[in-house]
């Protein structure tokens, strides 16, 4: 497997603000690489650095085995990207936009190729309408069409589901799967909505405040020893008091939707349950969550939690 | 109008023919002899080039065509282009005044013009009403040619005209006429011209105190072909 992206020690500072801090990761050929983090975690800055929109303060980036700085043109020829909103020239038609960006990508497509591309993203019947009249979803599809028109190796999608309805979100998910499985493309997709990513990503990087929290395959991350216990209890105050003096006192997470959250080893769950019950706390529901969204919450929010308590 | 120079030329060539007063009989005789010579030309057409030489006017040389028919019909026609001539309603008034009331001709001695000896004759109008105060003619007695004239007016200062003869001197027609006058300077507000720079001081100094001149160089005359009056109609 070829390493498509190799990033090491990447940092970006805007004035005194550190947006990305000593970030290292790598993307292998064929990966659907999920790039996760809350808003402002540094995902966009990192992606923009990968696309040479932003110059890093320090660190190295290699794509397709070439240093980005010295081989910018060759590398960008192999990348298709949609960054945040899929903005295109509103006063041009879908066809004109596609043709224009194809030429900028260094190819001279025939009319058939362009129309096929529009067909692929479901815009063939609107090919000659100006983009001003398009819905958000249509613009998104056109943006993806533009990203793919020059048949790039690597596709970078920054928050591709932003502003889309559930159907649009599902379409994007299917498209990513299609690109990965049928066309054997490498995809980097970022999002703060993690349940979207967990279904498609083969590997996941979670960052927070510009720092890498964890990187790994989706299955290893999900099957981690740790679980998150979500509980509805009769008396939250006494439950909290009891937990604070227990061996799990450091593992309490912030409440969510009125439910208590505890980060806990799977093997400890029965003992934990018994301890609460024996101290007179009635438990109405108890759920062990270990999907990616919870994991994400666990590592990002948990970090905040720990931070708060150690201060 | 171009008529200024034209009429003045007309005046100096022909107007004095109306001088009848006594005062200096030999001067009168001289003037009559000049008239006799000029009378040989009943009409003519001439091609010429006109140059306007005023310090603050930059103009190219323009082609003109001149028509004359005895006794007083005169027309200067531009051959395209734009011409600038000093203004002054003097000429027409002189012309009519001379014709009607006449002048007193006074001998003012000898002088030289173009290195030739000339008789200076001063013409004083009989009436005070006109614009002309004094007219001085410099007459070449030998060839019966007027070589120069100076006319002082009430309103428009002094005009000077020099006539240089060549091929057509037997008809009393000049090859070149130089008309000099005092040109009044003018100034335009910059808002109109939208110019940011001041004119170079050197150029300005050069412009100061220079007399304005208009020169007409005649290249050829066609004489006594019986010009129709209609040519002068639209003037």
């Amino acid at each position, binding site marked *: 497997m070829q390493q498509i992206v190799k990033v090491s020690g990447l940092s970006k500072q805007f004035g005194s603000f550190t947006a990305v801090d000593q970030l290292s990761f790598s993307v292998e050929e064929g990966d659907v690489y999920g790039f996760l983090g809350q808003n402002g975690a540094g995902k966009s800055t990192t992606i923009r650095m990968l696309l040479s929109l932003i110059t890093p303060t320090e660190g190295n980036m290699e794509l397709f085995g070439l240093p980005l700085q010295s081989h910018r043109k060759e590398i960008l020829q192999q990348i298709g990207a949609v960054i945040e909103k899929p903005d295109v020239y509103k006063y041009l038609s879908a066809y004109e936009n596609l043709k224009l960006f194809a030429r900028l990508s260094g190819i001279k497509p025939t009319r058939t190729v362009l129309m096929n591309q529009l067909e692929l993203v479901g815009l063939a019947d609107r090919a000659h309408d100006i983009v001003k009249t398009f819905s958000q979803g249509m613009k998104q599809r056109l943006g993806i069409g533009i990203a793919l028109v020059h048949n790039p190796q690597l596709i970078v999608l920054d928050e591709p589901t932003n502003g889309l309805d559930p159907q649009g979100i599902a379409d994007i998910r299917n498209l990513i799967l299609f690109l990965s499985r049928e066309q054997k493309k490498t995809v980097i997709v970022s999002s703060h909505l993690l349940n979207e990513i967990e279904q498609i990503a083969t590997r996941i990087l979670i960052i927070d405040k510009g720092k890498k929290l964890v990187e790994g395959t989706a299955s290893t991350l999900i099957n981690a020893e740790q679980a998150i216990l979500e509980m509805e209890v009769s008396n939250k105050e006494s439950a909290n008091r009891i937990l604070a003096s227990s061996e799990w006192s450091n593992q309490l997470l912030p409440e969510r939707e009125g439910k208590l959250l505890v980060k806990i080893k799977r093997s400890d769950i029965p003992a934990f349950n018994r301890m609460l019950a024996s101290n007179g706390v009635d438990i109405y529901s108890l759920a062990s969550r270990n999907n990616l969204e919870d994991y994400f919450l666990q590592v990002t929010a948990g970090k905040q939690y720990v931070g708060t308590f150690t201060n | 109008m171009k008529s200024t120079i034209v009429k003045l030329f007309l005046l100096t060539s022909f107007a004095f023919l109306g001088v009848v007063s006594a005062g200096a009989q030999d001067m009168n005789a001289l003037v009559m002899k000049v008239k006799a010579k000029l009378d040989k030309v009943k009409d003519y057409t001439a091609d010429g080039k006109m*140059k306007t030489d005023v310090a603050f006017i930059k103009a190219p040389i323009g082609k003109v065509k001149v028509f004359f028919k005895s006794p007083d019909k005169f027309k200067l026609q531009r051959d395209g282009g734009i011409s600038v001539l000093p203004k002054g309603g003097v000429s027409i008034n002189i012309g009519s005044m001379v014709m009607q009331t006449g002048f007193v001709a006074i001998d003012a001695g000898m002088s030289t013009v173009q290195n030739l000896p000339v008789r200076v004759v001063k013409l004083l109008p009989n009436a005070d009403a006109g614009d002309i105060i004094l007219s001085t003619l410099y007459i070449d007695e030998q060839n019966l040619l007027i070589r120069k004239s100076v006319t002082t007016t009430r309103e428009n200062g002094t005009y000077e005209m020099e006539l240089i003869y060549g091929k057509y001197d037997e008809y009393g027609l000049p090859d070149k006429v130089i008309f000099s006058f005092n040109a009044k300077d003018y100034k335009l507000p910059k808002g109109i011209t939208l110019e*940011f720079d001041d*004119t170079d001081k050197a150029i300005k100094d050069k412009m100061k105190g220079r007399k304005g001149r208009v020169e007409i160089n005649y290249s050829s005359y066609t004489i006594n072909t019986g010009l129709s009056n209609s040519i002068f109609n639209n003037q």
Partner: protein
Amino acid sequence: MWEHLQIELYKVFKRPRTYLSFAAITALIGVIQLGLWVDGKEYADFVMADFASSFSVDGKILNGYFICYVILQLLLVHVPLLIALIAADMISGEANMGTLRLLMTKPQSRTSIVLAKFLASSIYTVLLLIWIAIMGLFLSMLIFGTDDLFLMKSSYVVIVKESDVFWRYAGAFCFAALAMITVAALGFLLSFFAENSIGPIVATMSVIIVSTILSTMNIPLFNLIKPYLFTTHMITWKEFFDFKVNDANEAIIGSIQNPQKIVQSASILFIHIVLFVGTAIALFRKKDILS
């Protein structure tokens, strides 16, 4: 680079805004021509009022050449706005629309993107001037005919022979193109500092208006900085309409009174263009695209 220039031109000429400028020029010139057609004599009398008291001017003053001079004099003050409308929008407009980041992820060097964009705005500027030439010069020549060009300068009068005029207009238009490309370069540079187009357009116009006022006012303090303002040199096209005279004060056909002034102004404008565009390239190469 050539490819990218074509694309930039394609974008410029696909925008309705571009044609607005051409329409505006057509309307402005049409109004001037109509005005002079109807009331030209009064305008000429007004301009010549002082002069006409001691001289009479004979001939067809209100000919096509004169009309074009009036048009250029009036229009070249306003055309910078139309140029800023496009040039100051070249980068900021794309940043605003969001297309800049997509554009910048394409395999094109940043320098070539900037140069292509600047060249596209220059070509637009030149086309605008060609349009002014067609409407202001050729149409005026057709409507009003041609004759000698009679011009009142602030302290003297120039009459340019009919046969000696046209090449002067060719020169004047070339010079005007250089001056207007300087405006385009300024607008272009300013468009790097904003993510909307209004800011740079207004900023470009402000710079030009303030500099023009400084250039026009005859105040000793301002006179010191005048030679360094590019607006002072933008009107040097007028030098094409002044010729040398010989010792006998005869016009020397085909001459220019101050050719060194034209060369000097052109050089200063050219230096401005290089500076503006050079700065733009330097900035853009380092710029983080955050829009």
